[in-house]
């Protein structure tokens, strides 16, 4: 039993019996921990689906011409892979699952500000997800427009675009409401004494992200409604055949979707800033620099969207301005990486699984960020735009960045969430598979892209065959690694040993409550005197 919990009174949130019973005790629960856990399940299921589609794409790329599917199917599969991974996995990912679970605990609160709204967000997420997937089976056929829905193609194709767009619209609301909830919670429910600069860095990251969600998401919502209106009623907004402007669509789409990149990566950076201190026993180096760089990424991130449009025929001045801002937004990300590595200096490093995932993240994310410089540069971007280079770049950032940290967070907080422990050796084994598979798969794609292999191609020229083949093999290695990872966690969940309250020696508030936490989190709301990492300064850690 957990040492701090009074054995007779202790009931974990997993065992808690409320108004509803059975499955409804979960589906109708307004407890932020249960909601977080349900999101986590949803995200893992959708990730597995998206990864399967990705593996099918790679199998098709084993040979030029047809390997296992025709081009129409290929186009639908990459579209669905993108929609699932972006809207159902990476955007909700860390904030919805781990943010929901840990934000209230880490600021010393019993729940988020609006628990019912939180449940609504979850339901919108599920409804949006089901709608997106159902477009596969309904009349009109699976959509084939790419996740970016570029018009006029998206207006003219016969596939089921409106339904998928409507799904994205609903998912957008889920995201906005979660953002609203988090902003309010951070402002209103911090424990006594916890000023902004005494908040853990994960909370800073969630807070910055929440603002982007609230401000940027409505733009894509409106854009989606406009496309649906155009498809259904022929109102000319984006299609030049109806008197519209397709470039306007690209602007509106990327005004949201570029900041969305930061919605995807900032929470991951927050997790990194938690894991590194825990396993190095050092206060994060440059706490304020990291907090401010989150804010400046959130801010500058609004002014770089048109670097997705360097070849669309914008004015040359616009291209120059967006190129400049794109280069500038690279700086705060660099600052974070330097501070993270500096934190390891003179630490006392215990390289456990979550830390190793973070170390892997630092390498992959650096490659992703640095290749972003190639894309910010006007001359080189024009060449690699719309090629495998871009695909490799954003997989390094999104997958090597956000998803690797999703895995890190899963291994870091797993003992806290479930009160069980997984096998660390097998987890490390999975990690090595994933690292090797990942780089084999995506690094070759940088080379393919520079050689001129366009993305979203069902077929390719004979000279690309060798690299395409190597890349596909990498994908299979990575999928193997992921399967090992998941089975190890499932095994830990069902058969693993009991976890301690604080297995890693963490110092933020979640490690002061039992594993798993009680429904109310705290018996008594803590009073905060110091920032969370202050303890390392005094050398109080053994």
């Amino acid at each position, binding site marked *: 039993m957990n040492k701090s919990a009074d054995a007779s009174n202790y009931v974990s949130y997993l065992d808690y019996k409320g108004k509803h019973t059975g499955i409804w005790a979960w589906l109708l629960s307004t407890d932020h921990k249960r909601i977080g856990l349900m999101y986590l399940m949803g995200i893992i299921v959708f990730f597995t689906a998206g990864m399967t589609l990705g593996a099918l794409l790679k199998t098709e790329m084993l040979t030029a011409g047809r390997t296992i599917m025709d081009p129409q199917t290929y186009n639908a599969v990459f579209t669905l892979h993108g929609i699932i991974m972006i809207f159902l996995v990476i955007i909700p990912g860390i904030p919805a699952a781990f943010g929901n679970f840990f934000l209230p605990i880490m600021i010393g609160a019993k729940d988020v500000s609006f628990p019912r709204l939180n449940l609504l967000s979850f339901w919108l997420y599920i409804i949006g997800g089901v709608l997106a997937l159902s477009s596969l089976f309904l009349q009109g056929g699976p959509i084939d427009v790419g996740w970016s829905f570029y018009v006029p193609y998206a207006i003219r194709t016969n596939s089921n675009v409106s339904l998928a767009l409507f799904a994205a619209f609903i998912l957008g609301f889920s995201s906005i409401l979660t953002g609203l909830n988090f902003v309010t919670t951070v402002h209103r429910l911090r424990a006594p004494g916890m000023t902004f600069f005494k908040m853990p860095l994960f909370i800073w990251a969630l807070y910055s992200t929440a603002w982007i969600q609230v401000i940027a998401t409505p733009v894509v919502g409106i854009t989606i409604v406009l496309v649906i209106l155009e498809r259904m009623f022929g109102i000319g907004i984006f299609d030049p055949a109806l008197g519209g402007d397709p470039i306007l669509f690209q602007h509106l789409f990327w005004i949201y979707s570029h900041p969305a990149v930061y919605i995807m990566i900032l929470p991951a950076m927050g997790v990194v800033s938690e894991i590194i201190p825990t396993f190095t026993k050092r206060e994060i180096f440059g706490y304020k620099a990291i907090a401010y760089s989150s804010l400046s990424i959130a801010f500058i991130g609004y002014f770089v969207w048109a670097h997705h449009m360097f070849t669309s025929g914008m004015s040359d001045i616009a291209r120059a301005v967006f190129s400049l801002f794109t280069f500038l937004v690279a700086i705060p990300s660099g600052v974070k990486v330097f501070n993270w590595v500096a934190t390891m200096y003179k630490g006392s*490093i215990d390289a456990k699984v979550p830390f190793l995932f973070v170390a892997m993240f630092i390498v992959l994310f*650096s490659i992703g960020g640095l290749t972003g410089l190639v894309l910010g540069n006007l001359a*080189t971007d*024009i*060449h690699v735009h719309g090629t495998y280079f871009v695909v490799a770049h954003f997989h390094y950032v999104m997958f090597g960045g956000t998803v690797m940290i999703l895995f890190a967070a899963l291994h870091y907080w797993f003992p806290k969430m479930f009160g069980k422990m997984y096998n660390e050796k097998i987890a490390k084994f999975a990690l090595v598979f994933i690292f090797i598979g990942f780089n084999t798969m995506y690094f070759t794609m940088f080379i393919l892209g520079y050689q001129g292999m366009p993305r979203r191609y*069902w077929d390719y020229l004979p000279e690309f065959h060798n690299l395409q083949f190597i890349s596909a093999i990498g994908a299979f290695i990575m999928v193997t690694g992921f399967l090992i990872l998941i089975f190890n966690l499932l095994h830990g969940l069902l058969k693993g040993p009991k976890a301690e309250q604080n297995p890693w020696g963490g110092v933020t508030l979640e490690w002061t409550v039992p594993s798993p936490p009680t429904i109310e989190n705290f018996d008594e709301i803590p009073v905060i005197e110091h920032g969370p990492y202050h303890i390392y300064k005094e050398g109080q850690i053994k």
Partner: protein
Amino acid sequence: MFNGPTQYASDVDSIMFFIIAVSVGFLVIVTVAMIYFIFRYNKKRHPQARDVKESAILEVVWIAIPTILVLFMFYFGLQSFYGIREIPADASNIKVIGRMWQFSYAYPNGKKSDTLFLAKGKNYKLDLITTDVNHSFFIPAYRIKEDLSAGKTNYMVLKPAETGEFDIACSEYCGLNHSKMYSKLIVLEENQYNEWLNQGINKNTDSTKTTNAAEKK
């Protein structure tokens, strides 16, 4: 330093080389430092973490140096890109017409073709037009592309420096046969080119069709 089929292609490769060199430098520094720390300050070897003072100078240094480097990158890119946006006075105009899923070309004298023919050493301005959805006109060897954006006319400037055959690909997703939307650029010596250009001009047939159109496989 690099020898491309156009001056611009060589410039792009040089800029790419500069960015990659800087990037590899940073990546090596970060990775080596991290791996070194993980071993040097391992729990077993270094059981007690030491407090390290925050350093404003260090923060300034690692903001300033990358900022200067990226500003250089920005400048080189801008300069070279602006070079290919200026339309030379002697440039001849060729229309590039994209439709699902092929490119075709119209020359000033009324000739049309499915393969783009250009003369070595001459300046060209290509007007990019689509008759349906967006496409993108990409010549990998020339390191250049520009979208064919529905409802407007974009342009591209080029000056071939070598004779030869080069692939042209569509690089903006355009539906079913997007991956089959390949075409070819053939650069000829000027005299050969003029001969080709004036051949069969009044019959308005495509003399290249038989030899070039369907060889992409």
